């Protein structure tokens, strides 16, 4: 049995190589993990427990997790991009493997035997005869303040015992009994409650504040940032209503054209960049077919409104937040308050799923600004439902044109993909100025932070998954990133991959029709990658593709992508019912995430992502008029309900020998395209505009 060669260390571990920043061993029989990634409903904590317990050979219940905090956790950047398993998980695997080795070396020394003669059973280290000691016994004598050694390899695949199995999640029982606290449930001594009044229209300034009954209320104003602090939530809610009635606003950004958003995107000032090209000639080859696809602004629409607690004492600020990036939030807060980062600590607490960059960071600045007026008192701020839907950053709207040149023999010779979109990343901690909402409203305002896109090598933003995975001989991919941003945009699950895959996979279906080919056969023809072929073939088997009898008024569609072209492979077959408003009836999904650490966790993520993507694709679009966002409640921003949810079956192609990658975002794009392709299959109508509503079907027929 040979150990796999020590691979290069994960990024998180290279950045923070000291073992004791990740893990501690207590004399009382526990392993304490202090990861920098955070739980956002994706189940990462359970994966970490599995990986750690497996390497150390301890029972999983011995592994305790400390919530991430800037004071003690490694800086792992942002919990996003399906990288938790890749970065944090693999770091923990290496750290645990090395910790085991350090302990075994010491045990061997003390017992006077060689390491090879030792075995570990739930933390008890046994040697020949009756010789034994334990992690817990040795813990006080061992200093883990030492850097990780890249030469120490984790266990070989065949010796893993806990990974690859569906361990129950560590947080599920507490949630079922309602006892595991969310940030909204944290009560601190002398805690006060704050609310902030948001401008109805983005960019509007507070023109006047009329008479306002201040009884039991502390009013806090800094330019156009205005809020209240009260002793109870009920009083703060009432004070906010009085404040709203007293405030008048002026100005604001010009909203996008609500009747032609797709065209408006193309008319904005933009930064144009070449995303990728392959053997593309100049001038551009003529395309024989060109189509334009559209995706609207989407809301993250977390079930819990964003919330934060802040407390100032002696010029230091302590913040409790459900941010995805504790260190990033800290650096933006330091800029806003003109203070050193060391004077600020950010502690993570759980909230509901966020699905990207929602109001989590913004509300933390709100709380810090309010709390500054009452030094010593923690102030908890919770947004309203309306602000969660309308004031949080949105997923950017996109117009995507795709074209192809097809030879007389029916070969795709050139592929063109062009995107008009706002950037997909306006997270804090990335720029010289803050990206937090209230910072733009202060008396000394910071400039509006215009959303950017990281380069493709860093995952990309609007251009994520714009480069086809198919082996076309030549292509050119171009992006126009808008330099205006009347509606604030930032990361939403899958970023630009959702729109780009919708466009690519819809267009391939259109080509299949043009060329009179089966959509599956056309895809396989241009895919050499065996893992890609395998998920497509698997999903075809699952759905009995091309053979199953399809009821009247139903249709089936297929789509595929490899997330980020470097992460999970996912193929989807969708069945829709178009007898009334289009409905998804069934989704079959095959996925390959490399090594599967927790199969049920992967299925849960894929299934959840697919259902959310069904909701985005069939129902969702942020509505607005000249006065700002009008979809401010669950009535005006409906999401998929229980009775509308399709049956979902997921199969995993496990590859224990390959690196594990995340599953959270892999299904988003393929689901959208599979649904559009299914509608075409049912009706012969190509809908290129999301959401795939009856209205858009009728529009497409005209």
């Amino acid at each position: 049995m040979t150990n796999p060669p020590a691979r290069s260390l994960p990024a998180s571990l290279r950045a923070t190589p000291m073992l004791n920043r990740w893990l501690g061993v207590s004399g009382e029989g526990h392993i304490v993990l202090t990861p920098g990634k955070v739980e956002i409903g994706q189940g990462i904590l359970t994966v970490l427990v599995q990986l750690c317990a497996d390497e150390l050979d301890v029972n999983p219940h011995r592994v305790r997790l400390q919530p991430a905090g800037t004071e003690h956790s490694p800086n792992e950047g942002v919990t996003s991009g399906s990288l938790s398993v890749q970065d944090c998980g693999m770091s923990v695997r290496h750290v645990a493997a090395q910790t085991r080795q350090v302990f075994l070396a010491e045990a061997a020394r003390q017992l006077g035997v060689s390491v090879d003669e030792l075995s570990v059973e739930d933390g008890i280290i046994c040697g020949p005869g009756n010789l034994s000691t334990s992690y817990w016994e040795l813990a006080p004598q061992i200093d883990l303040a030492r850097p990780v050694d890249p030469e120490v390899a984790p266990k070989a695949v065949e010796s893993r015992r806990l990974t690859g199995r569906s361990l129950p999640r560590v947080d599920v029982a507490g949630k079922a009994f309602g006892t595991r606290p969310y940030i909204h449930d944290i009560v601190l001594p002398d805690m006060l409650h704050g609310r902030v009044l948001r401008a109805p229209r983005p960019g509007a300034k507070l023109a006047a504040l009329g008479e306002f009954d201040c009884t039991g209320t502390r009013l806090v104003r800094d330019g156009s940032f205005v809020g209240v602090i009260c002793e109870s939530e009920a009083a703060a809610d009432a004070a906010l209503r009085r404040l709203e009635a007293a405030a008048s606003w002026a100005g604001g950004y010009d909203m996008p054209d609500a009747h032609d958003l797709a065209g408006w995107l193309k008319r904005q000032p933009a930064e144009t960049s070449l995303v990728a090209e392959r053997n593309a000639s100049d001038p551009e080859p003529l395309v024989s077919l060109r189509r334009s696809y559209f995706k609207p602004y989407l809301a993250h629409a977390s079930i819990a409104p964003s919330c934060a607690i802040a407390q100032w004492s002696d010029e230091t600020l302590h913040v409790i937040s459900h941010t995805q990036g504790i260190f990033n939030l800290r650096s933006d807060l330091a800029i806003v308050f003109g203070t050193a980062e060391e004077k600020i600590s950010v502690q993570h607490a759980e909230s509901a799923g966020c699905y990207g960059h929602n109001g989590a960071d913004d509300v933390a600045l709100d709380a810090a600004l309010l709390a500054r007026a009452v030094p010593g008192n923690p102030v908890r701020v919770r947004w309203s439902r309306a602000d969660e839907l309308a004031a949080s950053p949105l997923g950017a709207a996109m117009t995507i044109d795709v074209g192809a040149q097809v030879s007389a023999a029916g070969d795709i010779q050139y592929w063109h993909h062009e995107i008009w979109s706002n950037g997909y990343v306006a997270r804090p901690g990335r720029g010289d100025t803050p990206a937090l909402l209230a910072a733009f409203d202060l008396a000394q305002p910071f400039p509006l932070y215009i959303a950017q896109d990281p380069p493709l090598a860093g995952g990309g933003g609007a251009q994520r998954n714009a480069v086809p995975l198919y082996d076309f001989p030549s292509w050119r991919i171009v992006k126009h990133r808008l330099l205006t941003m009347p509606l604030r945009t930032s990361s939403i699950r899958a970023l630009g991959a959702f729109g780009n895959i919708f466009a690519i996979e819809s267009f391939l279906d259109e080509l299949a029709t043009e060329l009179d080919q089966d959509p599956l056969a056309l895809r396989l023809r241009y895919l050499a990658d065996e893992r890609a072929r395998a998920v497509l073939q698997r999903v075809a088997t699952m759905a009995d593709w091309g053979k199953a009898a399809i009821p009247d008024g139903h249709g089936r569609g297929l789509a595929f992508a490899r997330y980020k072209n470097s992460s999970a492979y996912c193929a989807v077959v969708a069945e829709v019912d178009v007898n009334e408003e289009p409905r998804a009836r069934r989704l079959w999904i095959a996925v390959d995430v490399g090594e599967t650490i927790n199969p049920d966790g992967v299925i849960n993520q894929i299934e959840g992502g697919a259902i959310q993507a069904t909701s985005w694709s069939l129902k969702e679009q942020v509505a607005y008029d000249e006065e700002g966002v009008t979809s401010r409640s669950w009535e005006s921003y409906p999401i998929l309900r229980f009775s509308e949810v399709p049956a979902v079956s997921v199969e995993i192609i496990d590859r224990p020998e390959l690196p594990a990658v995340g599953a959270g975002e892999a299904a988003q794009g393929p689901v959208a395209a599979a649904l559009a392709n299914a509608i075409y299959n049912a009706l012969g109508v190509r809908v290129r505009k999301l959401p795939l509503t009856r209205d858009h079907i009728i529009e497409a027929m005209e």
Partner: protein
Amino acid sequence: MSDTSPQNRARESHMLIVNGQSYAFDDASQANLLDLLRNRLGLMASRFGCGEGLCGACRVLVDGQPMPACDTPLWSIAGRAVTTVEGLGTAAQPHPIQTALIAEQAMQCGYCISGIIVSAAALLQKNADPDEAEVRAALDDNLCRCGAHNRIVRAVMRAAAAIRSANEMP
């Protein structure tokens, strides 16, 4: 708290029973039920999601009927019995729905789950053998953003079966 003191009897119309215990509230109280539960009684399982009666995260049983606590003024439910998730089951004595949710790992973030437990408990109270469509209909006013719907439906069916088989035991 005893509900037989003269003082409390005089204010009988301003009483509420929460998970079997009586509470008096102020006649003039404008407060809603969710605020009472979370901020005065420390019963945090009922969640704030929208405050508009539209998401179901705050659902509780009032005399066995699911109601949005965020949208229910105290005066409107005087004298009635409120049951929250804490009253339905605990780790020591779980409700069959809670047991089934854990068995099916039927959630992601779990923020929606309290309200869903309440809706499902009300359903199983009046229909011990629901089909899948009936379960979905009963949960249609509970929003889940994580897409845990199908697992949740399976869990409710599993709980129904568990309750039926427990009832059939001699």
